[in-house]
């Protein structure tokens, strides 16, 4: 069991009102699963990803990541978990514009305290795995959207995370490149990588093994293909 949450709730203060983004989520994820989380905007799917991605802490409930309780960890401990256990891929790629592809991929390794030579070696290997071995020294502006997203995926994978989170990973790509990225995810999943994709597109979700729908901060449906 990689992820196990129990009665996860999250409340925000918006002015004088308290907004309940999550209303008690019970979720279990096994190693090797390929999951899509769907739901309309405001449903709480992003909040859920923030919490299980250790970017945010729940108001109530428990969250165990790899059998370890993370709901009460402090900022630095959460940063360490994000560095070692979680890889993020974003809709808008979020690459550092003035760094090369290689430097972007090396960043998590630097935060992990890896030596420069080791970081270069490992980053080149991962860039090769996503098919960008000849784009290593290019800056993001010299790469196509699909190539940029593959750099971001390489960066998410470089620290061998337990889970790969992708938030609308194909949202900024045309359908052809989107498919290439989805094929890359499927390959990675076939190699045993646990992946959670947040999406609102049915044809993306249908390519995963399990679809979870969120509505008003609760799991509405949880189906396996």
């Amino acid at each position, binding site marked *: 069991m990689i992820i196990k949450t129990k009665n996860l709730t999250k409340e925000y203060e918006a002015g004088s009102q308290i907004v309940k983004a999550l209303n008690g989520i019970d979720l279990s994820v096994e190693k090797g699963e390929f999951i899509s989380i769907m739901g309309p905007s405001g449903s709480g799917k992003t909040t859920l990803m923030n919490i299980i991605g250790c*970017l945010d802490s729940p108001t109530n409930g428990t969250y165990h990541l790899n059998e370890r309780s993370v709901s009460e960890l402090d900022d630095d401990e959460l940063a360490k978990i*994000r560095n*070692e256990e979680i890889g*993020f891929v974003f809709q808008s790629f*979020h690459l550092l514009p003035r760094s090369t592809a290689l430097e972007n991929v090396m*960043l998590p390794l630097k*935060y*992990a305290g890896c030596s420069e030579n080791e970081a270069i070696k490992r980053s080149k290997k991962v860039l090769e795995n996503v098919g960008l071995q000849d784009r290593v020294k290019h800056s993001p502006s010299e790469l196509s959207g699909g190539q940029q997203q593959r750099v971001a995926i390489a960066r998410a994978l470089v620290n061998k995370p337990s889970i790969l989170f992708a938030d609308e990973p194909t949202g900024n790509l045309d359908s052809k490149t989107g498919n290439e990225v989805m094929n890359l995810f499927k390959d990675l999943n076939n190699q045993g990588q646990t992946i959670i994709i947040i999406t609102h597109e049915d044809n993306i979700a249908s390519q995963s093994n399990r679809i979870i729908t969120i509505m008003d901060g609760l799991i509405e449906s949880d189906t396996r293909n």
Partner: protein
Amino acid sequence: MLIKESLVSAITSIKSNATRSFLTSLAIIIGTAAVIAVIGLGSSAEKALEQSIDDLGGRTLYVSPGQNRRGAVTKGMIPLDIKDAEALARNNEHNWRISPTITRNRQIKFGNANINERVGAYLPIHFNVRGYDLEHGRLFTEDENYGRKRVVVIGSDVPGELKTNVKNILNNEILIAGVSYKVIGILKEEGSTGWQNPDDELYVPLLTGAQRLFGTDKVDSINVGISNDHNIDAVMMTIEEILRAKHDIGPGEDNDFRISDYSQFADLRRQATGIFTALIAGIAGISLIVGGIGVMNIMLVSVTERTREIGLRKALGATQRVIMMQFIVEAILLCIIGGIIGILIGTSLLFLFASLNDWPYALPISAVIGSITFSALVGLFFGIWPAKRAAKMDPAVSLRYE
């Protein structure tokens, strides 16, 4: 490796906002340039002063007439005369060189030129006491002094003032107050000491001046030359003893002469320079602080602009400490670059001013290290708050910042 990453990120950020970075560090640049130029000028001026004191060939005490007071009654100026100087010269306890002087302005004529210039009557030893060197011809001798010969040594500017040149005036006669004197020597350029210009002066033997030119044996002052290792207080006491005995001053009565120390003038000047330097350096320091506020301001802008980058770095595992370091390094780097440019500009200004004034070029290395350190501290101090703001950002919120 993280420090290197912070440095690389800081350099990238500064380079990508080159104009903004330059404008931000302008106050630091100006402040540092001012500090360096002023401190450098201060020490150059001091060094110039020390050199001119060294040129005097040791220290010179200056004995001048004073007022004789008995109770509240002032009996007017009691003059010093040549006999006082002779009495001092007879004592050789301190191995001093006694040089009495009488100076007056007199009309000088050569050819058609007619000027009013200072004429001084001195012993031959005077040139040695004041460290004046000869450029052309020769100095007058003891024999010429005792013989009251009409010979004159002139300062380096005098030929020009008499609208002639060295060749025409040397070994020729000039008229001093209507009487002809033979120009036997011309001094090297000495430069003004601040209260008199030896280059403008004409020098005649003491007894010649006393009898032929000025008609008095009252001297203006007596220079007492001693070497640097003498105890100045002991020397002053000996002078006092001799002159008090000579002037019949009883116990408990005040001296009717004054002894001053040339190096006291130097000390005063040094003090004034020091105060001035400290004042300007202080103002420049304020400019550095103001610059620091500018840096803080632009760092806050930079933090806000890079909210998404901060969110991303945090998502990838950067701790608060790492983010904080990144922005502090950037602020410090901005200030240090400003400091270095400032030092280069300040040094150039200093070089320019020093060569214009013919001063030796002196810049204490401590001023350079000090201003770099101070710039770095300004960056550190004013970088902390923006960096803390960056570090405290919520990763989930900042990732989605538009």
